[in-house]
């Protein structure tokens, strides 16, 4: 009887803890906004928010498939380099006189090709995602610098207009990003594919015997992540107007990984929401923006970003410890 009662009590506190953990990011987000708003006059303005959203557009396009990939149990550390390669390739095509539409398409296809290689090596051949994509992180950056040793610029104005045009006051690039996030959220929440992604990351063996084609899920997500990184590269070229091979998309893998983990995606897969990921991206962007406004030196800003990643890992550990083993679960199939 007392055992039963204790079970109920622990269940309740567990529910409370889980609720807190789930909303920790919201609390931190509000605190961050309030802090910067109190310390700066320009932070809480429409213009500043437009800037933050514009800067986040590329991150949002990449983080959407990246987070889904993470939920399926894989990771792609080469997204930043893929963005750089795609930007350089499409930029080079334009300097060679190709119409910008064709150049943009080639940029996206370059990203798709990278995803294709990743999917084949990692999902089909079973190589480690961390090692393979860490390898391409370096290899693709090097390739981008080989393609364009000097920064490319002088793109057609029709192309550069994409970076500045607004519809109803909202930059086009932000609209593109919102569409991508919306599609990602719809797939995760409203389709069977979303369930298959979570199942593949949660327990691949069980997903497989349930009839989920886990190989197809993994390969498809690497392809989409590659293509989205390609698209993000083109968007970045349009916004910045030049494509320095060494820095375009540099460090993006850090930003998307931090945002996804902050948003409650499990690094080992099986868990996560798009709402959390979106909030994670905005949190990071506002942090960066606020620190810049307060004239904090960039080194400190980078250090803060790294610290947030570690904190996100801690938060994930805390959230994870509330699942599974709490009840002294005996049903562990691997222990047999």
């Amino acid at each position, binding site marked *: 009887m007392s055992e039963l009662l204790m079970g109920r009590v622990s269940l309740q506190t567990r529910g409370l803890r889980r609720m807190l953990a789930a909303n920790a990011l919201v609390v931190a987000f509000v605190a961050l906004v309030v802090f910067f708003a109190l310390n700066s006059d320009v932070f809480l303005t429409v213009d500043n928010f437009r800037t933050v959203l514009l800067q986040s557009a590329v991150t949002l396009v990449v983080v959407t498939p990246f987070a889904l990939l993470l939920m399926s149990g894989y990771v792609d550390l080469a997204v930043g380099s893929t963005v750089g390669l795609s930007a350089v390739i499409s930029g080079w095509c334009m300097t060679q006189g190709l119409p910008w539409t064709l150049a943009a398409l080639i940029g996206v296809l370059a990203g798709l090709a990278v995803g294709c290689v990743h999917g084949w090596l990692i999902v089909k051949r079973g190589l480690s995602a961390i090692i393979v994509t860490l390898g391409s992180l370096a290899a693709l950056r090097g390739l981008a610098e080989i393609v364009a040793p000097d920064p490319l610029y002088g793109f057609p104005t029709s192309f550069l207009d994409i970076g500045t045009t607004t519809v109803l006051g909202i930059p086009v690039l932000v609209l593109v990003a919102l569409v991508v996030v919306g599609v990602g959220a719809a797939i995760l929440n409203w*389709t069977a594919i979303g369930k298959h992604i*979570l199942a593949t990351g949660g327990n691949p063996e069980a997903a497989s015997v349930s*009839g*989920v084609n886990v190989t197809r899920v993994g390969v498809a997500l690497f392809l989409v992540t590659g293509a989205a990184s390609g698209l993000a590269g083109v968007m970045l070229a349009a916004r910045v107007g030049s494509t320095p091979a060494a820095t375009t998309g540099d460090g993006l893998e850090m930003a998307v990984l931090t945002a996804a983990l902050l948003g409650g995606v499990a690094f080992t897969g099986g868990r996560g929401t798009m709402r959390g990921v979106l909030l994670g991206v905005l949190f990071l962007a506002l942090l960066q923006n606020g620190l810049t406004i307060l004239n904090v030196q960039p080194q400190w800003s980078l250090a803060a970003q790294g610290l947030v990643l570690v904190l996100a890992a801690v938060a994930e550990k805390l959230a994870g410890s509330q699942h599974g083993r709490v009840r002294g679960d005996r*049903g562990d199939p691997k222990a047999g």
Partner: protein
Amino acid sequence: MEVVETSAAPALDVRGLAKSFDGRPVLAGVDLSVRSGEVRALLGANGAGKSTLINCLSGAVSADAGDIALGGTPQTIRSPRDSIRAGLSVIYQHFSVQDDMSVADNIFLGSELTARGRLLKRQQLTEARTILDGFGVRIDPRSRVGDLTVSEKQLVEIAKALRRKPHVLVLDEPTAALGEQESALLLEEVRGLADRRGVGVIYVSHRLEEVFAISDSITVLRDGVVALEGRRADVSREDVIAAISPLAAAAQTAASERARPASTRRLLQVRGLATGVVCGLDLDVAAGTCLALYGNMDSGASEVLRALSGVVDRDAGDVQLDGRPYRPSTPVQAIKQGVAFVPGERKQALLPDLPASDNVMFAHRALGAAPLVRDRDQEVRAFEELAEQMVLTPRSPNLAGRFFSGGNQQKILIGRWLLAPAAKKVLLLDEPTHGVDVAARAEIWRQIRLALADNEIAVVFRSSDPDEVLQLGTDVVVLSRGVATLRASVADVRVDQLIAAAHAAEHERAPAHV
């Protein structure tokens, strides 16, 4: 009970199914057939090939040879998808559920209800609720599966299989995790599926009671072939037991002839041990004896060994080793006091990339019987001695551990403790000959008996194989859900008593629902 023949071709027809792992045949030409509306019980000891047979049907494993036909149509089953599409549903003993997903999402995983690509969540919830209500259990289809009890998870697994409206349903020990009431409901449900919907059922179970209550026909597998096949009405309990383990009778005689050691020096005394599911367990092991812990997967026998070996810290209890208090918190401490443990999974003990001689020497080192600076001659001598005694093949000290066959790996892992030249008191063996061929098995048993002969050490082993219990043990303690349900000298106990005792506590401790 008369079975209505609904169609001429059997619902499932398996012919000459064969499968080998690493050159060791696990299935050697198995025939199995189930008509629509028939419940066929599938029995066999561990390692008889039941799991492999089920895995071949479910598509988790591809058979090497043989034909599988459903409703007269030949099927090529290369993946779980093929199997599900053909109308086969398997309910796994180890659950194939997703802990982080809801009950409804689990039930519909892989065959979701959609309309133009859109997931019909509400409809899935309603249907899931209907299916679960059919069991008479109250599980909220929205709750997270990871928060359910083991028996609730099992029900989710069953609901998932039934949802697909299969022609053939395979249940792998479905009641192992269920209480009495739930088991009864499940049996009724299975019988109903066969009688009313004409589903062909393959029912795998160790519980003879259940088998005789529910089945129309019985197949017993042994060593990868069909050892017995017949209608339930035509076979007796004794036939089935004899088919499962023909050695049992012989073992009985051997056990009664085996001399009991004269020594009564008590090496290990356990009082009120609590660890995992086990609570309040008492054990007494005298020098020169071999105590068998018999039980099913969830019996807790394995946890007893893990607690005694220092792998896990025990929750409560008093243990005396050779008259002194004994409470190791790590395996190193246990070994220092003379207690060594060989885990059930070889990969938990073997270092696959190190040479065999190094694998042997780990026991010497742990027991303090090896110098700090390596002595190559000593290492080779130690290996040679083990190879000689245990009839190890190949006798190459420099060959990496993973290149030895399973049986030879096990000889290394057990032999290194038996033969290490240092003071040992108790050897703890978890499934000492699991997945080992007959010859290696006999060799391992012979060496263990030999080591016990001079009444210096004692052995405690866990086995889920009654043959092994009767062949190797001096005494046996049967555990069921963490409770000792039978204590006997091996000479006085029969196989069916062991099996009955292994299930004895299941009905008393049915998991409560929240």
